[in-house]
């Protein structure tokens, strides 16, 4: 299950613009219809609306007729795409060639899972798409029609609306990033009634060629609109990070946000990155005799039960926050509205900066905890020499 492809960073200069007369949705689905029909892929992993319900689900589509219920950008993210992909591609190699259409954060999660040997991407063409965001699951379940309408308007205008999930409001990586993440990208920005297909790897280019789509069309409009929107959203993100950094400056601040937690572990289950067979906090390792707990309780004054409610979050953070792609699936899943997604996103931002690491950006970037550079954390290890180095580099 190794990523045998050694992709080099591509800087796509041109793409293939496709008409979207009827609707953006149709234009996008047509690409996949063609890929399936022409046997370029054997199956397509894509979200779909479950018939006769308001629910959405991932399906592995091999029957063309199912495109009728498929939806490239549902108003909600029911299950993180990375998790959907790893649920069936973990044990062994994929025989089928599949194309997976996912939101950029889902693609990034898939790339992190690749590094953790939890997905096999050898026969997968990862397709990302410009994402306007998604709506909170609970809001949608309460009033599907209202939220659907709201989402339509938001996605047409590319608004940074407060009705979007908090994770989506603060997301600046909603489009194609300069790295080796996805193989293909579908650009929705910049052009009216058109979609742009962009290849981002040799696999992606291969598929485009097989589809007969030669990348000759300009990407300037798409790039310009994208850059403008990235700037706006980055500003929003910075202010979010600042606000939350202030909020949790004190340790109490941090735990205060987690006080409502009911220890259901939904956040962990929904998280695409959490991959352990059995979570450490569910294991027997930390179960002790009652007298041990009574003694601890006596020493501390009081103990909160069930135990490790708050420690669970800290522990989960220390295990996966370097790979956190800030998708917000955890916050969507929390039954008591703990802002867990925002907390993890903020801590993730700071810790990832320490290692100069962006999760999901490049397939070949090694996970920081598995990679050892000769000069790391010189501020801690050799502070005297580090000062010199920093000033030298500054010169």
């Amino acid at each position, binding site marked *: 299950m190794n990523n045998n492809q050694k992709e080099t960073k591509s800087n796509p200069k041109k793409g293939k613009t496709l008409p979207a007369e009827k609707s953006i949705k149709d234009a996008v689905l047509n690409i996949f219809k063609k890929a399936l029909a022409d046997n370029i892929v054997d199956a397509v992993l894509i979200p779909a609306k479950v018939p006769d319900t308001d629910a959405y689900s991932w399906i592995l589509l091999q029957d063309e007729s199912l495109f009728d219920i498929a939806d490239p950008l549902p108003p909600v993210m029911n299950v993180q795409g990375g998790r959907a992909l790893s649920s069936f591609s973990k044990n062994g190699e994929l025989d089928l060639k599949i194309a997976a259409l996912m939101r950029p954060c889902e693609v990034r999660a898939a790339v992190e899972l690749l590094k953790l040997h939890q997905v096999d991407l050898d026969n997968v063409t990862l397709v990302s798409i410009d994402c306007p965001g998604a709506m909170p699951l609970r809001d949608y379940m309460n009033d599907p029609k209202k939220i659907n309408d709201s989402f339509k308007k938001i996605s047409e205008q590319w608004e940074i609306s407060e009705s979007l999930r908090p994770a989506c409001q603060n997301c600046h990586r909603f489009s194609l990033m300069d790295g080796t993440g996805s193989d293909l990208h579908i650009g929705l920005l910049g052009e009216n009634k058109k979609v742009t297909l962009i290849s981002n790897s040799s696999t992606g280019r291969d598929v485009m060629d097989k589809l007969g789509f030669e990348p000759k069309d300009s990407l300037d409009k798409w790039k310009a609109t994208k850059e403008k929107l990235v700037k706006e959203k980055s500003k929003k993100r910075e202010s979010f990070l600042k606000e939350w950094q202030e909020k949790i400056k004190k340790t109490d601040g941090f735990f205060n946000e987690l006080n409502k937690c009911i220890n259901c572990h939904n956040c962990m289950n929904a998280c695409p990155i959490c991959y352990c067979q059995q979570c450490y906090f569910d*294991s027997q390792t930390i179960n002790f005799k009652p007298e041990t707990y009574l003694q601890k309780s006596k020493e501390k004054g009081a103990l909160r039960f069930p135990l490790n409610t708050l420690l669970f979050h800290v522990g989960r953070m220390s295990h996966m926050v370097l790979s956190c792609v800030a998708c917000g699936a955890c916050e969507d899943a929390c039954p008591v509205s703990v802002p867990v997604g925002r907390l993890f996103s903020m801590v993730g931002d700071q810790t990832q900066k320490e290692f100069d690491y962006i999760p999901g950006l490049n397939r070949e970037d090694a996970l920081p905890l598995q990679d050892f550079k000769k000069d790391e954390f010189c501020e801690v290890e050799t502070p005297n020499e580090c000062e010199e180095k920093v000033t030298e580099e500054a010169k």
Partner: protein
Amino acid sequence: MNKKIGVYVCECGPNIPERIDIDKVIEELSSMDEVKTVKKHSLLCSNDGKKFLKEDIEKEELSHVVVAACSPKDHENTFMKVCEEAGVNPYLFQLVNIREQCAWMIPDKDEATSKAIKYIKAGIQRVMFHDALKKKELEINVDVLVIGGGISGIEASLSLAGPNRKVYLVEKTDALGGMAGKLSRILPHQGTEMGIVKEKIEQVKNNEHIKVYTSSEVKEVRGFLGNFEAVIKSTQENEEGTEEEIKTGAVVLATGFDLFDLKENPVYGYSENENVVSALEFEDMIHSEKIELKNGKKPKSVALIHCAGRKEKGYCSKVCCMYNLKFAHYLKDNLPDVEVKELYMDLCLPHKQDQSYFDKLKDKGVEFIRMDELVKTKKSGDKIEVEYRNNDKKDKFSVDMVVTSPAMVPSKGTSHLAELMNLPLDESGFFKELHEMLNPVATPMEGVYITGCALGPRNIPESITQSHATSGKILSSLIPGRKVKPEVKVSEIKEDLCTGCQTCLSVCFYGAISYDAFKGVSVVNEAICRGCGSCVGSCPSGAIRSKHFTYYQLYLEVLEALR
């Protein structure tokens, strides 16, 4: 199992009772449920003490033993042996340090006593959860695989091969001898003529216990001390694809060196000037007894330039000064009236007989010129102009011929094998020895040794000595009939908890963890595992535990100590 714990407090002479109220300690401990007996003794590690301990353990029918005394570094093994003799599994034992960690550093008697009590109680809590680990015995293979057929590989093979031990010597070129075989002569004051290399090669060929594979490469090596498996592949054209699998107990890497490419820096003028030659090319000239310029004439002046590549590579190659003296001697002895200049940075003469060799040269009229830096080597009519800088002043001279000594760099074989076997390389790309001072020929992989220039620049006697050193280590550990008893306090992975993310694999320094693709889990090779515990800490799901340092044991010990 009904736990019957015996606690023995050693007085260690006046050391402990001076600072710790032993009777109070015994009183506190006797009230614990799990403790069957608490006794004191004046000196448990003495012959009397050990006898007392053994007899008491047997009498009280103990299941676990705790001794409160000195540092485990001093006597853990001693008391573990006593337990074993008394019929208690030696791992159901804990030595609590109340001497160095309590008596010797706390001046207040009450404080020291209460700390000692705490520590012993913590040790009791811990020992109750020890597992009765058993040492395994593994059969071993005593043969040796030597990779590299230069003088180091040859010497290792000759000193290892014997009626009970086969040596497989693999050489990637079509002939044995390596770089030493290309030399015209060894330094004369160091004894013998080059014929000796040929002699050694003959000895190897005639040795029935050494199997030589030339034009061959090692494709794969897996296993551990006493149990290696390797695949040797022939690289000859008509034999492409022939592979042989062999089993050995140890591997010796003798992949030698290459030379710094003089073309890398135009300052050496190597490609532009046909009469600038490398030291190796000059050796060839001496071999064929033809010291000539490209136009067939004999040179009237020769410059020997040291340290080519020293600044670029960042280290001194140690041997070049001496072989340049050899060149100077040769030139003066064989070419009439030749002018010889040696241009050097520092004279590296670290062996006891080196300086006298240098002194003799002065009598032959060789000019020694010190430089800080070589500036240029360029054509100047028929001659070659050499410009250098010394003490901020530039100077130059012209000669007919220039012999440049390139730095020794790691061979391609070294980097290839390092990758193949997951062995660390140092900054310059040579193999990294296990310990710079005390373990110069070993690697972190037990059973894999390195010798010769694969480790770094060195001369022939040093390489030979290192080859003998590797055979010393191998002959001492791989003895026919002896079994290997691997470390028992190792890590183990619970298969059903492992998700195969291979994080543990990436942190294991000893290469003791491998990935089972079929099951999708990582597996610890207990024979290689040294019990360092890095993997235990790295696993997010806690699927790995250390056999003698489980979370439970440590947590309870600490909890008790902090009560």
